[in-house]
């Protein structure tokens, strides 16, 4: 089992980045999930959802544009 998985939600309309994150949280046994998004709105929405589920969330800007959110259980 991989230790982390990556969800690429770049370019998806609201609320699909959160839907994809929810699926990843529910389906995987990983303790670390990376979510790639391209707007600050998605960063906030995904982080808010993950925190409600008891995960920590922090984000970094990616050199090619967009953001990488790191979720940890």
């Amino acid at each position, binding site marked *: 089992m991989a230790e982390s998985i990556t969800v690429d939600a*770049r*370019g*998806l*309309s*609201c*609320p*699909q980045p*959160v*839907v994809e994150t*929810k699926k990843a949280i529910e389906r995987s046994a990983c303790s670390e999930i990376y979510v790639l998004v*391209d*707007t*600050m*709105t998605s960063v*906030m929405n995904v982080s*808010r*959802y993950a925190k*409600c589920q008891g995960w920590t969330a922090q984000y970094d800007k990616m050199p090619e*544009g967009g953001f990488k959110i790191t979720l940890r259980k």
Partner: protein
Amino acid sequence: MFQALNRALMSRKGPILTGIAVGILAPLLTFWGNPGNMGICVACFTRDIAGALGLHRGAVVQYIRPELAGFILGSFISSLIYREYKPRTGSSPIVRFFLGFFAMIGALVFLGCPWRAYIRLSAGDLNAIPGILGLTVGVAIGISFLWRGFSLGRNYPAKKPLGYIMPLAAITLIAFVLLRPSFGPEGSSAIFFSEKGPGSMAAPVALSLAAGLLIGWLAQRSRFCTVGALRDLIMFKDFHLFNGIIAFVIAAFVTNLLLGQFKLGFEGQPIAHTNVLWNALGMVLSGLAFTLAGGCPGRQFIMSGEGDGDAAVFILGMLFGAATAHNFSLASSGTGPGAFGPAATIIGIMFCLSVGFLMREKI
């Protein structure tokens, strides 16, 4: 001070602050001259602009509404300052065009977008209740598609100038309302301005524009969305955006009361009809179309200001839908639904259901 305000807008308080601002400004705009319970209505105002441009000939609903130009420009300026201006496009634009088209037809059967539904409720118009229930049903149907993998696909970064088109269109509209140019014989050529009816009722341009700019700014920072509020509440039990709607309705209720604009009842409400079924079904259509497109009409204007070309196409669809609604007798009036409004609503719901069923990502 601006930094503190920006932090507040980006926090949990953001949608609440925006809701309070909209809730105060909308009744004030009516007080200053806009039509009854229509201080702000994204659908009605888009319809008025379509009329002013001569896209339809509903003589009583033709005016260039500066509020909507303000929405786009307020969002554009805010997104530039806070580095959130991101030109992007490519997520099924033609589908979004027709989602905007049918969202508008549904809104004009109800006589208002979700923003106006809440304003009507806050002013005591009980016909808003079937509308808001219908809206909720529409959003819930949209959510069932989202859970099943519905997606219009990804958008992709675009060249910077793509995002300048809507702000330039907004500036053009402001020029039209200020200069009132005529492009041919008086009365038979655009730009048309209603001489009676709702289109003739308007707050002073400067106030309308200032309110639009302020709301555009606030909504860009806080992501205020009247459809996203219901969607996130139902999908994730997330009150973040919905708190904004509660604040909006309470603020509008208090302001309407203070201004003497509150009148409880079903009958004789401004620019409203009492047909429960079509008030509800019109908004089922709108709620579904907005949910599939990712946000309410106000949010689409805000996103178009941030450079979202797909939101811009949705708005053009709304403009075309407004023109069609009046040219084909689909729009309701104070007496009830238009001759072909119910049929168009059913066709619209079928279109949206088809989009929801057919446009799924393989999981």
